[in-house]
């Protein structure tokens, strides 16, 4: 296939949308992404041998490689790739506003591709992964598992998801906090259209519980640019309220307000030790995967 020759094609959201199943999409993304890397992204300990290092006082004797000692008369310790015990929680916003999209793909679709790709990637490196979706309430919660079969459960859920209801991020995060009892990596995917202070407060709660948090902030290009003209009656997709305005007139002011909104999340996350990743739905998914892997590497 020609598409396989070009890794960017695998990561393009529009191309992914044409694929038939979520599993296929996840595989395409992850494999395509990995194929483009110069070395394996997988690190840590496992049963598989990794390398030798000189013995130092305090090392357990059971890891001494006696064969090397026999050959070289020196003590070396055998190191193995670790079996992962990282628990990943992917929390996906499925409110009505996430259904907005102007380039053939909605924010929710983009979020699903992102979630599935991350789930695939995590399971492939022996991490356990769970999924939560919400709008005004928690729609689904799949606890994290590390087995391969768990992937199909997650992907099936993502296939069926539809945008509906109003966003109530802060309350939902508090509820989800009850489910996540063991500390792990919380991946939050949303357009964050809610009260910023309350959302930040809720995310800080996860950090308080010793979790690592990555926030993927998804926005459609039209939400950022407001590329409409003439007189427009805007209808809110969640609250169903309306307003008549002239995008041509308010565009610059709107962009300024939106930029302040994004900047506020960015700064607040930075202050709270939360990784913030802004995602335009026209941007390829590798940026998201890269952010995840960077965090994973940091966690060891």
């Amino acid at each position, binding site marked *: 296939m020609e598409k396989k020759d070009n890794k960017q094609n695998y990561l393009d959201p529009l191309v992914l949308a044409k694929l038939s199943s979520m599993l296929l999409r996840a595989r395409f993304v992850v494999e395509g992404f990995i194929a483009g890397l110069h070395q394996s992204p997988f690190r840590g300990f496992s049963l598989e041998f990794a390398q030798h290092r000189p013995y130092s006082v305090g090392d357990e004797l059971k890891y001494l490689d006696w064969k090397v000692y026999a050959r070289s008369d020196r003590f070396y310790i055998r190191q193995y790739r670790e079996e992962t015990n990282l628990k990943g929680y992917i929390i996906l916003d499925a409110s009505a*506003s*996430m259904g*907005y999209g102007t380039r053939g793909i909605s*924010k929710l679709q983009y979020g699903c591709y992102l979630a599935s790709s991350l789930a695939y990637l995590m399971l492939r490196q022996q991490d356990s992964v769970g999924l939560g979706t919400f709008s005004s309430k928690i729609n689904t919660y799949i606890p994290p598992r590390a087995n391969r079969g768990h992937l199909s459960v997650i992907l099936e859920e993502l296939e069926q998801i539809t945008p509906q209801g109003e966003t109530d991020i802060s309350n939902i995060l508090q509820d989800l906090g009850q489910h996540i009892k063991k500390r792990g990596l919380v991946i939050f995917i949303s*357009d964050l*259209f809610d009260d910023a202070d309350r959302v930040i407060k809720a995310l800080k709660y996860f950090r308080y519980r010793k979790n690592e948090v990555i926030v993927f902030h998804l926005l*459609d290009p039209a*939400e950022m640019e*407001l590329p*409409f003209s*003439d*007189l*427009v*009656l*805007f*209808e*809110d*997709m*969640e609250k169903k*309220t*309306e*307003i*008549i*305005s*002239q995008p041509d*007139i*308010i565009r610059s*002011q*709107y962009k*300024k*307000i*939106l930029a302040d*909104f994004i900047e506020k999340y960015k700064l607040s996350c930075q202050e709270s030790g939360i990784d913030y990743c802004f995602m335009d739905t026209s941007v390829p998914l590798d940026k998201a995967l890269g952010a995840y892997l960077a965090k994973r590497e940091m966690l060891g």
Partner: protein
Amino acid sequence: MNINFINPLFLFGLPLVSIPVIIHLLTKKKARRLPFSEIKFIQLASIKVVRRHKLKELFLLLIRMLIVLIFILFFARPIFYALPIFGQGAQEATSIIFILDNSYSMGYREYEDSYFATAKKILKDLVTKLDKKDKAAFLLMNSKVENPVSYLTIDKQILLGEIEKCNLSSHSTDIYKALTKAYAILSDSIASNKQIVIIGDLALHGYRNITELGVSEDLIKEFDKNVKFIFIDIAKKNPLNTSVSNVVIDEGVINQPVKISATVENHSNKKLKNLPVSIYINEVNKKQNLKRVAQSFVSINKNASGNKEFFYNFTKTGIYSGTVNIKPDKLSIDDKFYFKVPVEEKINVLLVDGAPGVSFYNNETYYIKLALNPISHTGSIGSRIATIKELETEDLEDFSVIILCNVKSLKTRVVNKLYQFSGNGGGVIFFCGDNIDSKAYNSQLNRFIPGKLIGIKPEKNSIAPIKVTDTESVHTVLRPFVGPKGGKLEKANFYKYVALKPDLKSSVLLKFSNGDPYLIEQKIQTKNGGRILFFTSSCDKDWNNLPAKPVYVALVQQAVRYVSKRPDISKEKKIFVGSKIRREFSSTKLPDSVKIINPEEKSVVVKPVQDKDIYKIDFEQLDIPGIYEIIYNYKNKTQKEYLSVNLDIASGESNLTKIDHKKLKKLFSQSPVVIVDDLDNLDEEFLSLLKGKELSKSLLLFLVSLLMLEGYVANRRRKS
């Protein structure tokens, strides 16, 4: 404010102003519905931007409507009238009264020309600008009524000729008189538009008789409220000025320092330092050659006056004239004050003390000597005291007046000596007292006594005093006591006096409340005979308390001056430009003619006219300051009198502080008023006030400005 239109039909196009609104409504688009994820940010942006945008849109719409409006008005050709216009507007004839201020304050020289010269030029320009149909009159505004053209005429040449002829006066401003005349002229006019144009320095003093006397309302009520006022302000803002406002001179006595006090006024907000003040004096017949005899300097605070005193020793008798001058400023006419001084010999008086005391204070003559010379020995009256015995040996030729104070009787030789003294023109005054021997007086001095002495009254001491009644006499001796400001002789208490029955040759000048005479004049029939006065009470405080009253000094001095036949200085009053002088004559002393020569040597001959029992001349042409000479021509002789005439500084004319324009408008609040002070564009402005101002040019400029503004605003909107 009034507006008329030359092409009013174009105003039917005014509904076209709504075109921009109609276009706006027709091109308004319908909003398309669009679902959107979050409209919160759109709402926030709209709050900040849309209101401002709508205002801009409204502003643009208004500009476009204004453009259409101005376009229509431009073709309708509006004419603006600052003053209300009646009749057919610009085509209507106007009646105008030009009033030119020619009071002396208009002589102020700001630059090359005086205010008056500038005002004349302006006035001539304005007259030439009048329409052929317009009628005008020309009046002058000063305290003397001068009406060069007191009727409405269309003949500009008459007006221009009279304007050219008129001169600056030395009078003060009086707007009231000029306005009264102007209203009277306009009341006969049938023109719809009537205007009064006043050209002057708009100094506050000129309007005081309106502000302070409160005649404004009466004046305005009486006349047509539709009469419009145009004030043309010639003067700069509050010009500075100083003036000599008064000079007071002591009585002139030969070889004695005479005090000359000058008052200088500073009518400005700046303090004056070391202003030179000079005095010029010469004999009155040499008034052209005044010599500077003294100079000093005076410093005066802002808006205040300062006094400077000089002393001058006259070495010859006669009449002198002079001036007090200060350094000339931009208004020079009031920097000089004229005066005249008659210089006489000292009046020597011999006081004969009929009851000398053991000490000086107990003398009968103590009070009268003090009264004759109350301040020092430098007065105009000198006196010496003699006893009755000394009188016998005294050479009476050294004296002008002899006063006999409580003298019991005189020897026949002394009486004859007194008769001879009196016959040669010497004055004699008698004061009574307890020493008086009535019988001796009645027999020996019957030629002096103006009646018959009866005896002392009351015979017993009485506690109740009697008073001198009010004086209504116009006798020279009593002049200081006449009128409300005169001294009050009736305040003195009299306890004793010598009763006297006056004879027919005498005249009673003062009498007591019971009818008995107090002061009597004995008429001497001889040609050069001296004057004789007889006081029936004492000259000290034994019989009355008159010597303790201030009026005593005036009474004694006036009596001495009268009997010594000196001119009566008490009747001398300050004479100002614009005053009227009157001289009255009895039939026995009637001059054939009276010649009056003014300071410019121009003379007028006046004949006395009969008015009931007397003859009189009235002279009103005191139009310039200076020394006037009055020559009375009798059959055998001529007699001269000199008058010093000065500017009426007290009128405030020298104070050039201007009236506030708002206050001026308020004074004439019942009439339309415009004040013009931009002299550079006066012609244009005057015409626009008179005939209105066509606004087409201004409208065209405004239209172009609006079009440019519309282009700029629309372009900015398009870009945004």
